[in-house]
C-alpha cells in the first residue's frame, strides 16, 4: 500500500492512460459492427463470409498484430494508433457475430407487424429491431469491454504505456507489489466499465429491468456461447 501512496501520481497517470486507450476500441467496435452485423444477417452468403473473416481476425494473436500494423498502414511503431486499431479489429470481430445473432433473434412477426402499420425500413430498424436486439448487443459489448481493458496491457510491451507498464517495470525490478498494482488496477477498470455498461443498458432499455436471470433471453445465452462454435 505504501508503494501506491508514494507513487500515486504515476499510478493515476498510467491508470488514466489505460482508460483512455480502452474507450475508443469499445465505442468504435460497437459502431462499426452494427452495420456489418446487419449485412451479415441480411443474406445467407454474406453471413458465412463475414463471420468467417471475423473468426480469422479474432484468431490473430495481439502482440504480433501490434507489431505488424505499423508497416501495413505506415504508422510509427510507438504510435498508440496501432494498438487502438488492433483492439478495434478484435472488438469488431467479436461484436459482428453478436450483432448478426441479435438481429436474427428478432421475431419475424414483430418485423412484419411494424411494416404493416407503416414503418419504413429505417424507422423499423432503429425503432423496432435495434431496441429488441439491445439485450444481446449489451451482453456482447460487455465481453468486448472486459477483453479490451485486459488487452491494453499488452501494448506496454511495444511502449504504449498503460497499467501494463507496471508488469514490465515490476519484473525488471523484481518487485511483485508493482505487478499486483497493475493487475488489480486493470481488473478494477474492467469492473467499472462493466458496471457502467449495465447501468447504461438499464437506462436505455427500461423494459429489461424487471427481467430476472430466469427469464433471460435465449438469444443472449446463445450469442454468448456462439464464439465456441
Amino acid at each position, binding site marked *: 500500500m505504501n508503494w501506491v501512496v508514494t507513487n500515486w501520481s504515476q499510478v493515476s497517470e498510467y491508470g488514466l492512460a489505460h482508460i483512455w486507450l480502452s474507450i475508443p476500441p469499445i465505442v468504435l467496435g460497437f459502431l462499426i459492427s452494427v452495420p456489418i452485423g446487419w449485412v451479415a444477417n441480411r443474406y445467407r452468403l454474406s453471413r458465412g463470409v463475414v463471420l468467417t473473416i471475423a473468426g480469422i481476425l479474432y484468431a490473430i494473436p495481439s502482440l504480433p498484430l501490434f507489431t505488424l500494423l505499423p508497416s501495413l498502414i505506415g504508422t510509427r511503431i510507438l504510435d498508440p494508433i496501432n494498438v487502438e486499431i488492433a483492439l478495434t479489429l478484435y472488438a469488431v470481430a467479436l461484436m459482428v457475430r453478436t450483432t448478426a445473432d441479435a438481429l436474427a433473434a428478432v421475431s419475424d412477426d414483430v418485423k412484419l407487424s411494424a411494416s404493416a402499420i407503416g414503418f419504413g425500413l429505417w424507422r423499423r430498424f432503429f425503432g423496432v429491431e435495434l431496441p429488441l436486439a439491445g439485450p444481446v448487443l449489451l451482453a456482447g459489448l460487455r465481453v468486448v469491454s472486459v477483453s479490451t481493458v485486459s488487452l491494453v496491457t499488452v501494448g506496454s510491451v511495444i511502449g504504449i504505456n498503460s497499467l501494463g507498464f507496471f508488469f514490465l517495470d515490476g519484473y525488471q525490478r523484481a518487485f511483485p507489489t508493482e505487478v499486483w498494482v497493475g493487475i488489480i488496477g486493470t481488473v478494477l477498470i474492467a469492473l467499472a466499465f462493466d458496471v457502467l455498461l449495465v447501468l447504461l443498458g438499464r437506462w436505455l432499455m427500461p423494459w429489461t429491468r424487471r427481467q430476472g436471470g430466469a427469464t433471460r433471453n435465449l438469444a443472449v445465452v446463445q450469442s454468448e456461447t456462439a464464439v*465456441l462454435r
Partner: protein
Amino acid sequence: MNSYSDAFAWLVDPVHWAGPSGIPQRLLEHLGYTGLTLVIAIVIALPVGLYIGHTGRGREIVVPFTGALRALPTLGLVILLALGLGIGILPPLIALVILALPPIIAGAYSGLESVDREVVDAARSVGFTGSGVLWQVEVPLALPLIVGGIRSACLQVIATWTVAAFLPLGGLGRFLYDALPNQDYAQLLAGSILVIVLALLADGLFAIVQRLVTPRGVTAGRTADIRTKTQSPPRKDPSWLAPEKA
C-alpha cells in the same frame, strides 16, 4: 513496401534457419510449450466440464471463478508467477494452464447442455446407465463444442506463449523481443508473421477437426440458427464463455 521485402529476406535467409535460435528450433519450442500446456489443461479441465455438464452440479462454484479470470491481464499473471517461482518454464506454464482452463471447461459443459434433453431421456428409457448416457450419447453429440473449447484455448495459448517470451524462454516470441530493443524491424515483422501463420494454421486445423467430429445430422458444431428455437435455455448466465483474447 520496403519493410516487407526486408522481412521476407529475413525469413528466407539460411542463417535464420539453423542453430539454437533458428526458426525451426523456435517453432519446435513454441509447439512444445503449447502442446504441453494444452495437454495439462485438458487433463484437468475436461473431467470438470463433463462432470458439470452431465450432473448439472458445481456450476455455482466454477462459473464465477472462471468468469473472474477473464478480467485478469495475461501478461500480469505470467510475470507475477515468474517473480514468485523464479526463472524456468514452470511459472509461465502454470499461468498458461490456468488461462487455458475456462474455455475447455466451458466447451465441455455447454456442449453437454446443448444435447437435447429428450435424447438423453430416450437413452435412459431404453436402458442406458449414467456412464452409458455420458460416453455414448452426450459426449459424441457434444464433441463439436468440446473441440471448440479446446480450439479457443489453443489459440489463446499460442498467443500468450508469444507474450510470455518476455521471460528468458524460447519460442517464436523471442524474435519479437530480441528485435524490439534493437529496432530490427525486419526481424520484428518476420517474427510477427511466423506467429500469425502458426495461429491461423492451428485455427484451421481445429476447424477441420470440428467438422470431422460432427455426427451426421447434428448442427451443434455449425452456426446456430437462432430463428428456430428448439433448445431449452441453459440455466445460468455464461457470459464468460466467449474465449479470452490473448
